[in-house]
């Protein structure tokens, strides 16, 4: 309680977890990127203490660490039915560009970095991440430049995402079918 951590600018030694998720995809490039010394150091500098990686179908195994030398505590797993719990307890989420992961994170109001998988053939998913980044709801980067994205990100500039609403669609469908408005 209140102890000053080595790399902690705020002087608070509480647990701050970075959660990395690739969904059901195989996205080794992202797992490799977060496993690099540069990214881990950058995350420590920003005050994060734990790094949890959901690696999906990928084959690259990141290095576990219990954070003895003052670095991050690193852990990983392939799949889990309680991704929502991991998201809830995270202070920062680094995710693939799947719309499911993106909106689940945004609705929880967690800071999010979306990393685009450049190996995918039809990469329409970057459209969504780009658009949401332009609207300042998230940060958007590539695996190779992830450490720079983390370095330059300012969480204060993010604008909270207001959850969408399916009511307009429902109204139009009802009217089209001749149902009266409520």
């Amino acid at each position: 309680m209140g102890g000053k951590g080595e790399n902690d600018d705020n002087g608070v030694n509480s647990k701050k977890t970075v959660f990395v998720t690739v969904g059901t995809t195989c996205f080794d490039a992202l797992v490799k990127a977060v496993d690099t010394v540069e990214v881990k150091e950058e995350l420590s500098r920003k005050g994060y203490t734990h790094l949890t990686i959901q690696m999906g179908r990928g084959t690259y195994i990141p290095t576990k660490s219990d954070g003895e030398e003052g670095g991050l505590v690193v852990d990983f797993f392939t799949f889990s039915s309680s991704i929502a719990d991991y998201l809830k307890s995270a202070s920062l989420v680094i995710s693939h560009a799947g719309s499911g992961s993106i909106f689940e994170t945004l609705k929880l109001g967690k800071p999010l970095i979306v990393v685009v998988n450049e190996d995918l053939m039809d990469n329409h998913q970057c459209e969504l991440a780009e658009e949401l980044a332009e609207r300042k709801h998230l940060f958007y980067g590539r695996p190779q430049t992830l450490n720079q994205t983390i370095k330059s990100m300012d969480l204060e500039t993010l604008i909270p995402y207001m959850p969408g609403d399916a009511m307009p669609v429902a109204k139009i469908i009802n009217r089209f079918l001749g149902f009266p408005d409520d």
Partner: protein
Amino acid sequence: MHQVSSLLIKLIPFYPRYFWSGSCVHLIMEKGNGCCFSIMTMPNLIVVLIAIIVIFVIRILFVIHQSRKPLHNLPPKAVSTLIVLGSGGHTAEMINLIRVLQMERFTPRVYVVASTDNMSLQKAQVLEASMVDQAGPDKLKEKAQFMQIYRSREVGQSYLTSIWTTLVALVHALLLMIKIRPQVILCNGPGTCFPLCVIAFVFKVLGIRWSSIFYVESIARVKRLSLSGLLLYKLHIADLIFVQWPHLQKKYPRTLYVGCLM
């Protein structure tokens, strides 16, 4: 021929949609006796064929024209609804939409899910169970049904084998549609919904069942429609196509911009 076509165009809207194809034959017989007697008695196969093709083209144009307009002759009762679930993000968006629809209007409901997508099936079952809890069992007279459909192509499958699997998927889709014959189809991609929509459109043309087809483009599509969305748009198969980003509506003017569903 021109006279027959123009007469048909004038008369078509006065016939009810559901039984139009049956009445059409009468119409040709009656009017044919008057103005094109020679055509009907001449055993000329080509002329008959051309006539059939013209009638079909007119009927298709009529169906497309009618599909754009809201229904007026439908009494405000329940409509049988087919909900095609995609996968992952698609399913999540569809479930958001189903939640806000009045369940007593859209009933009975049939959910169709790709046979390899157990996750979506589970989500739909959870949704239906929660709605039964909310409304009480008396309010929902008929229970929702869940059906699985073969996918025409799995991720990574070779193109050669996918010809065969596409055929199987089509036949399966046809059997399902004959069984369900929904009045309303709700879908939002990806590919699974396309064959079902095409079959529904053919049913409309043949007068088997008039269904209103609604397609909601995925929120992930910001700049271009997906392949299913584009095909349904270009071929005029969907009655209404909703998009979630303003640029898309500008690019495809016949779509409706409705804001984000997620």
